[in-house]
């Protein structure tokens, strides 16, 4: 078995994928990519891959995928148009798309070469070797007013000084007193009576609120024990109490 020609090996190593190889083949064909023969290009590519295979060169999978696709394209291009199944992509369309791709890659390859050929800094033109440099010296001014300082100390002091909570003594009606009073009064209540009627007669509004709260709790407790019945139309409507009918 003869050694594969080294030149081909190197050439294959140099391609950056099947599109790259196709572009090189196309460029060899014509200067203007718009006039290349796609069919001829396909055949060149397939020859190339076949040759590599005969020489037992390792071909990357994407080259083989492209070869299979091009073989399909070739057969589609050669078949009479009428025999094609409806729904198949038009082979001319596929060929045109391939040509458009090649044109675009070619344009960018050309643009890259022209870019690299420009006068580049550090290769063709040089900046000053030892610039003095520009410096910006920052001076900070702090925006703090005297008030801010005092407010901050006030804040810290308020936060750290012990706080004493003193609860003022005030008149209340205890739950025990309310229980005794409501239980005593309900015994004579055959009809529904508003809970207000069970409260002691006091002038202090605070004590009256306390009495209402305690009497309400007393009423609930007595209802639980079955010693009173409660009735209310809806939320926040007057609450009525009476002696249980069977009691």
């Amino acid at each position, binding site marked *: 078995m003869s050694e594969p020609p080294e030149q081909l090996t190197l050439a294959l190593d140099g391609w*950056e*994928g*099947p*599109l*790259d190889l196709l572009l090189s083949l196309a460029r060899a064909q014509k200067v203007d990519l718009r006039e290349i023969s796609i069919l001829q290009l396909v055949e060149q590519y397939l020859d190339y891959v076949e040759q590599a295979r005969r020489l037992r060169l390792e071909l990357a999978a*994407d080259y083989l995928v492209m070869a299979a696709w091009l073989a399909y394209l070739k057969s589609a291009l050669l078949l009479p148009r009428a025999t094609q199944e409806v729904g198949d992509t038009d082979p001319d*369309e596929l060929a*045109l*798309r391939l040509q*458009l*791709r090649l*044109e*675009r*890659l070619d*344009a*960018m*390859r*050309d*643009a*890259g*070469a*022209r*870019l*690299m050929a*420009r*006068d*580049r*800094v*550090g*290769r*063709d*033109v*040089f*900046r*000053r070797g030892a*610039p*003095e*440099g*520009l410096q910006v010296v920052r001076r900070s001014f702090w925006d703090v007013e005297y008030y801010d300082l005092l407010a901050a100390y006030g804040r810290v002091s308020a936060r750290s000084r012990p706080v004493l909570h003193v609860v003022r003594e005030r008149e209340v009606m205890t739950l025990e007193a309310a229980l005794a009073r409501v239980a005593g009064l309900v015994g004579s209540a055959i009809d529904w009576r508003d809970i207000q009627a069970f409260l002691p007669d006091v002038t202090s509004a605070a004590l009256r609120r306390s009495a209402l709260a305690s009497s309400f709790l007393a009423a609930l407790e007595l209802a639980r024990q079955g010693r009173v019945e409660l009735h209310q139309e809806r939320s926040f409507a007057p609450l009525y109490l009476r002696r249980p009918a069977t009691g």
Partner: protein
Amino acid sequence: MSDAFDRAVEAVVFASPEPLTVEAIRAHAGEGDVRGALARLVTRYRGRGIELVERGGRWHFQTAADLAHLLRRGRDEIRKLSRAGIETLAIIAYHEPVTRAEIEAIRGVQTARGTLDVLMEAGWVRPAGRREVPGRPLTFATTPEFLSHFGLNSRRDLPGIDDLRAAGLLDPVDLAFDQLAVENLGEED
């Protein structure tokens, strides 16, 4: 005196290790007609061994291009970019902002891990926001350093960009194909 101000602008640009914008020059040279001073300085240095140039809106002094052979001697060659690197840079420059997938669609191969890194490390390419499509892919664009390194005033100065655009070669294949199809339909009518 415009001459005193020209001197100030000249000194500031000369002393800076980086190309400077007009605003940066003004910050150091003080209030005055910076653009006017720059224009006068460009004229003054024209044909000398040193030139004042604008690159991507930033100004710097550099040696005249025809003297490259004298200055290159004894210097390390600047790092060579791989073929993949050159193509990728060209695609980004001519198409920006462009996603990695779009670069790969044009090149027909996956972008190797190091290719974009090298371009970003050189300071020529930067991430430029995400495209508002599903997956929100990152886009890439060139930097002012790119323009400055390759001696371009702006992207409009990219070699042949107007011709490429006019020929539709900067449009994606799908778009170019559709346009061709429309033209052919028109001819058949």
